[in-house]
C-alpha cells in the first residue's frame, strides 16, 4: 500500500479503470451489435425481393422469415446500447472520482500536512496528537467518500446490466448450412478429439488438416457456434515419443503458409488459442492471437480464481518495463488447467540471438511479472538485436515449504520435469523451424538458461531436441536425471557449450539434489567435475568480476541490499552468464567443480564411512553368532558323548547283574532239580508202592513249592534289576536333560544377546536414516527461515555443520 501524508488510506481507489478506455470499449460493443443488426437488416431487405421470384404455397410465412431475426437483432442492439449507456455513466463517474482523488492526494493532503506541521510546532505533545488525529479523520473522510462513490458507481453499472435479459429464444438449426454445416460439425468433432485427455498427435493433426479445408465463413461459424473452440489451446506433447507424432514447427509452418490470407485472418480472429500456440506461425502473429485469448478469458467466472489471477498477472507482465526496455510478446498461452505461457522481450521473429529462460520450483504464470523482471535483466545484458523468452510452459513443482501445509514433495521427483522437458523441446525445435520456414529469416544463435528445477527440465529437453542449441547455462541446479544425461556431452548443444555454476551460499540447490534421493530418481549435480560441464564460479573465484552469490534466488532483492542472485546485475554469475550468451565464454576461467560439490562429496564420504561402520558391526555380529553356534555344537557333542558313555556303563552293569542272577537261579534250580530227581528215584526204588507214590507226590508238591519260590525269587530279583535299570535310565535322562537344558539356556542367552546387539545396531542405523531425513527437512525449513533473517551468517553455520560431521567420525 502506498503511504500518504498523515497516514490517509487511499487504497480503495488505487486502481480506478481508464475512463476513456471504458468509453471506447463500450462504443465498440455497441458497434458490434450494430453490425449484427445492419447485416440482418440487409438480409431482410434482400429477402424482400422474394415475392418477385417465388410463387408457391405458404408465401406469407416464407416472406416473413426474416422478420423475427430482425426484431431479435434490434433487441440485441438495444441491450448493447444499455451497456454502452451504463459504461459511459461509469466512465464519467471514474473521471470525476479520479479528479477528486488527484486533488486530495496532490493538493489537499500536502496543504493539510503543512497546516498541521505549523499548528503542531508550538503545541504540547498531547495537543499535537489531537491536531494530527483530527486532520487525519477529516482527510480520511474525504478519501472514504471517494471510495463510497466508486462503489455506488459500480452498483449503478451492475444494476443496469442486471436489467438486460435474453430477448431471443434459442432455435434449432434445420439445414446443413452456416453454423450447422457438416464441415463445421466435423470441425467441432475433431476439436473435441484433439483436446480430450490422452489426445494423440494424429488427433491434433487431423484437426489442423480439417481447418485448412474450411472457408473463412466456416471458420467464423465454428467460433460463433462453439465458443469453447476459441480459447482452448491445442494439447502439447507429453512424452518423448509424442515429439515424433505431434505437429511441430515444420508442420505448423507448412500449414500456416498453405492458408489463404482470408483464412488466416479468420483463424486469427476466431480461433486465437489455436493460432497462438501453433509452432511454425510467426511469433508476432502468435502474440496477437494470444492477447485475444487472454482478453477472452480475463474475468471469465468459468475459470477458477487462481486461473483468473494468473491471467491478470500475465496481462500486467506484458507491459514494457520502460520506453527503451524492448517490446513484449505473448508467444504462447494456454489458459486451461494450470495456465501456461511464454513471454518475450525483443523481436523474436528477427533477433540474431535468442535466449530461452527456464525457471524452477515455485515459478509459474501466477508470478509472470516477477519472472519478467528477472528476464528484463537478462535482456538488458544482451547485445543489440537480441531477444529473450521467459518459458513458463510446464507445471513446475510447488515450493517445498508447502510441505508444512499442502505437503508437496514435488521438487524431489522428476515427473514434472520429464513432461515439461518434452514441451520445452517442442518449443525449442518449434522456434528453430519457425525461423527456418520463413524465407526472410535465419536461425539465430539460440541459448537456454535454466535455474533450479528448470535445469532438471531443460536437461530432459536438450536430450530430446532435433536441433542443437548454441549454449546451455545451468545455475543453482536442483540436479539432473542421470537417466537422461549423466554427462554434459549427452546434451544436444553445439561445441560442448554446456555451462554450470552453483553458489556456495545457495542452500536450496544441494537440498534439491540430495533430497531427490528421497524422490523417484536420485539426481546428479551438473557442477560436479565428473559431469563434464564448464563450471564457473559464483563465489568470486576466477577472473570475472562481480559479487559472490548469496543464495538460491535469481535476483536476491534491491540493488541496495547485500543479497546477490544468480542473474542479478552486478553479481559474478550474471557477468559470466552474459559473457557466455554473448559468445565470450572462452574468456572465463573455469573451476573444476563448485565448492558446494566438494562439500557434498565430503559429506557423502562421511555418510559412507558411517554406513561402513554399520556394516562392520553387522559383520561382527554375524561372526560372533557363527562362533557361538560352533561352540554350542561342540559342547552338545561332548555332553551327548558323556551321557552315552554313562548310559552304556550302567546298562552293562545291569546286564551283568541280570546275567549273574539268571545264572545263579539256573544253577540253584538245576541243583534242586537234580536232588529231587535223585530223591524220587530212590523213593521209587526203596519204598513200597503206596509209600513211594505218597513220597513222590510230596516231592512233586515240594518241587512245585520250590519252583514257585524260585520264580517268586527270580521275579523279585528281576523287579529289582528293572528298578535298577529304571533308576539308571532316570539318572541318564536327568543327566541328558540337564545337559540339554544347560545348552538351551546358553543358546537362549546367546541368541538374546545377539538379538539385542543386532536390534541395537539396526535402531542405530534406522535412527541415522531418520535423522538424515529429518535433517534434510529441518535444514530446508531452517535455512529458509535463516536466509530471511537479517545478519544470519551462512559461513559460520556451515562451520558448525562441519564440526558436527567431524563429531560423527568415531562412528
Amino acid at each position, binding site marked *: 500500500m502506498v503511504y500518504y501524508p498523515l497516514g490517509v488510506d487511499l487504497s480503495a481507489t488505487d486502481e480506478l479503470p481508464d475512463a476513456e478506455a471504458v468509453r471506447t470499449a463500450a462504443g465498440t460493443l455497441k458497434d*458490434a451489435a450494430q453490425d449484427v443488426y445492419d447485416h440482418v437488416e440487409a438480409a431482410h431487405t434482400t429477402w424482400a*425481393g422474394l415475392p418477385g*421470384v417465388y410463387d408457391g404455397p405458404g408465401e406469407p410465412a416464407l416472406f416473413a422469415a426474416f422478420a423475427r431475426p430482425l426484431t431479435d437483432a434490434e433487441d440485441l442492439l438495444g441491450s448493447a446500447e444499455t451497456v454502452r449507456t451504463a459504461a459511459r455513466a461509469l466512465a464519467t463517474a471514474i473521471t470525476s472520482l479520479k479528479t477528486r482523488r488527484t486533488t486530495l492526494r496532490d493538493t489537499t493532503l500536502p496543504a493539510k500536512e503543512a497546516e498541521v506541521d505549523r499548528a503542531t510546532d508550538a503545541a504540547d505533545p498531547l495537543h499535537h496528537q489531537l491536531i494530527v488525529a483530527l486532520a487525519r479523520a477529516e482527510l480520511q473522510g474525504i478519501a472514504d467518500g471517494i471510495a463510497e462513490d466508486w462503489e455506488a458507481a459500480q452498483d449503478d453499472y451492475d444494476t443496469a446490466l442486471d436489467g438486460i435479459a435474453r430477448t431471443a429464444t434459442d432455435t434449432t438449426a434445420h439445414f446443413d448450412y452456416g453454423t450447422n454445416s457438416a464441415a463445421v460439425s466435423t470441425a467441432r468433432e475433431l476439436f473435441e478429439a484433439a483436446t480430450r485427455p490422452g489426445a494423440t498427435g494424429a488427433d491434433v493433426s487431423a484437426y489442423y488438416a480439417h481447418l485448412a479445408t474450411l472457408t473463412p*465463413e466456416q471458420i*467464423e461459424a465454428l467460433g460463433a457456434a462453439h465458443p469453447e473452440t476459441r480459447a482452448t489451446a491445442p494439447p502439447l506433447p507429453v512424452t518423448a515419443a509424442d515429439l515424433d507424432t505431434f505437429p511441430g514447427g515444420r508442420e505448423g509452418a507448412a500449414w500456416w503458409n498453405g492458408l489463404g490470407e482470408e483464412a488466416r485472418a479468420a483463424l486469427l480472429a476466431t480461433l486465437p488459442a489455436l493460432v497462438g500456440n501453433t509452432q511454425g506461425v510467426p511469433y508476432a502473429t502468435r502474440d496477437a492471437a494470444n492477447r485475444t485469448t487472454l482478453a477472452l478469458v480475463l474475468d471469465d467466472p468459468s475459470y477458477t480464481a487462481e486461473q483468473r489471477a494468473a491471467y491478470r498477472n500475465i496481462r500486467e507482465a506484458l507491459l514494457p518495463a520502460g520506453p527503451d526496455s524492448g517490446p513484449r510478446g505473448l508467444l504462447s498461452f494456454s489458459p486451461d488447467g494450470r495456465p501456461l505461457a511464454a513471454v518475450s522481450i525483443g523481436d523474436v521473429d528477427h533477433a540474431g540471438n535468442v535466449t530461452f529462460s527456464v525457471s524452477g520450483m515455485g515459478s509459474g504464470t501466477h508470478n509472470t511479472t516477477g519472472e519478467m523482471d528477472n528476464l528484463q535483466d537478462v535482456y538488458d545484458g544482451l547485445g543489440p538485436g537480441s531477444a529473450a523468452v521467459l518459458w513458463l510452459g510446464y507445471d513446475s513443482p510447488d515450493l517445498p515449504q508447502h510441505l508444512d501445509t499442502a505437503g508437496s514433495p514435488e521438487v524431489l521427483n522428476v515427473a514434472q520435469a520429464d513432461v515439461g522437458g518434452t514441451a520445452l523441446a517442442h518449443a525449442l525445435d518449434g522456434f528453430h523451424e519457425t525461423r527456418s520456414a520463413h524465407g526472410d529469416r535465419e536461425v539465430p544463435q539460440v541459448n537456454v538458461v535454466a535455474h533450479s528445477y528448470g535445469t532438471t527440465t531443460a536437461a530432459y529437453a536438450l536430450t530430446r531436441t532435433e536441433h542443437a542449441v548454441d549454449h546451455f547455462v545451468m545455475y543453482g541446479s536442483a540436479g539432473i536425471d542421470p537417466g537422461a544425461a549423466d554427462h554434459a556431452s549427452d546434451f544436444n548443444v553445439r561445441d560442448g557449450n554446456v555451462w554450470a555454476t552453483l553458489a556456495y551460499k545457495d542452500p536450496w540447490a544441494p537440498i534439491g539434489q540430495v533430497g531427490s534421493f528421497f524422490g523417484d530418481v536420485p539426481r546428479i549435480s551438473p557442477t560436479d567435475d565428473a559431469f563434464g560441464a564448464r563450471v564457473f564460479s559464483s563465489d568470486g573465484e576466477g577472473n570475472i568480476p562481480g559479487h559472490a552469490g548469496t543464495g538460491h534466488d535469481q535476483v536476491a532483492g534491491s540493488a541496495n541490499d547485500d543479497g546477490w542472485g544468480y542473474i542479478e546485475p552486478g553479481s559474478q554469475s550474471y557477468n559470466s552468464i552474459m559473457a557466455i550468451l554473448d559468445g565470450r565464454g572462452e574468456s572465463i576461467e573455469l573451476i573444476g567443480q563448485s565448492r558446494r560439490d566438494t562439500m557434498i562429496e565430503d559429506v557423502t564420504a562421511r555418510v559412507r564411512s558411517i554406513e561402513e561402520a554399520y556394516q562392520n558391526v553387522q559383520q561382527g555380529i554375524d561372526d560372533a553368532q557363527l562362533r557361538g553356534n560352533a561352540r554350542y555344537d561342540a559342547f552338545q557333542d561332548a555332553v551327548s558323548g558323556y551321557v552315552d558313555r554313562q548310559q552304556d556303563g550302567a546298562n552293562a552293569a545291569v546286564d551283568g547283574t541280570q546275567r549273574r542272577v539268571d545264572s545263579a537261579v539256573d544253577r540253584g534250580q538245576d541243583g534242586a532239580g537234580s536232588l529231587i530227581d535223585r530223591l524220587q528215584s530212590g523213593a521209587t526204588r526203596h519204598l513200597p508202592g503206596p509209600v513211594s507214590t505218597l513220597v513222590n507226590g510230596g516231592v512233586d508238591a515240594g518241587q512245585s513249592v520250590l519252583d514257585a519260590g524260585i520264580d517268586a525269587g527270580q521275579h523279585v530279583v528281576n523287579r529289582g534289576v528293572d528298578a535298577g535299570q529304571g533308576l539308571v535310565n532316570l539318572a541318564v535322562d536327568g543327566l541328558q536333560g540337564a545337559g540339554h537344558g544347560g545348552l538351551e539356556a546358553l543358546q537362549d542367552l546367546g541368541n538374546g544377546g545377539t538379538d539385542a546387539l543386532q536390534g541395537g545396531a539396526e535402531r542405530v542405523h534406522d535412527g541415522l536414516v531418520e535423522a538424515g531425513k529429518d535433517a534434510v527437512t529441518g535444514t530446508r525449513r531452517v535455512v529458509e527461515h535463516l536466509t530471511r533473517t537479517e545478519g544470519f551468517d551462512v559461513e559460520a553455520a556451515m562451520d558448525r555443520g562441519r564440526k558436527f560431521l567431524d563429531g560423527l567420525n568415531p562412528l
Partner: protein
Amino acid sequence: MKYELDVGGMRTLLNTLDTTVLDLPQDVVALEDAVAALKGALGGSRGAARTERLGEDVLGPDGLAVVVRCENAAAAGRGVLDAVVDGDERMADDARAKAS
C-alpha cells in the same frame, strides 16, 4: 407443380443472401471480442466480471439465435429452389416449413 419460381432470379437472390448471412457468425465473434475488450478496460473492478457474465449469458446466446434463424430462412429458400429444380414437391414443402 404448385411451385412456380423464377429460378434464375431466386438463385441470384439466394447468392446475395448467402454473402450476408454466412458472414453473420463473424459479427457474433466480434461481439464476443467487444465484450472481452470492455471487461479488459474495466480492469480489476467488479464490473469486469459482470460484463463477462452478460456476454456469456445474454449477448452471445442472443446473437447466435439471430444467426441460426437467418440461416434457417436462407437455407430454406435454397432448399425450396433445389427441390423445385429437381421436381420434388414434397421436399420443397419440407424445406419451406423449416424456414424459421
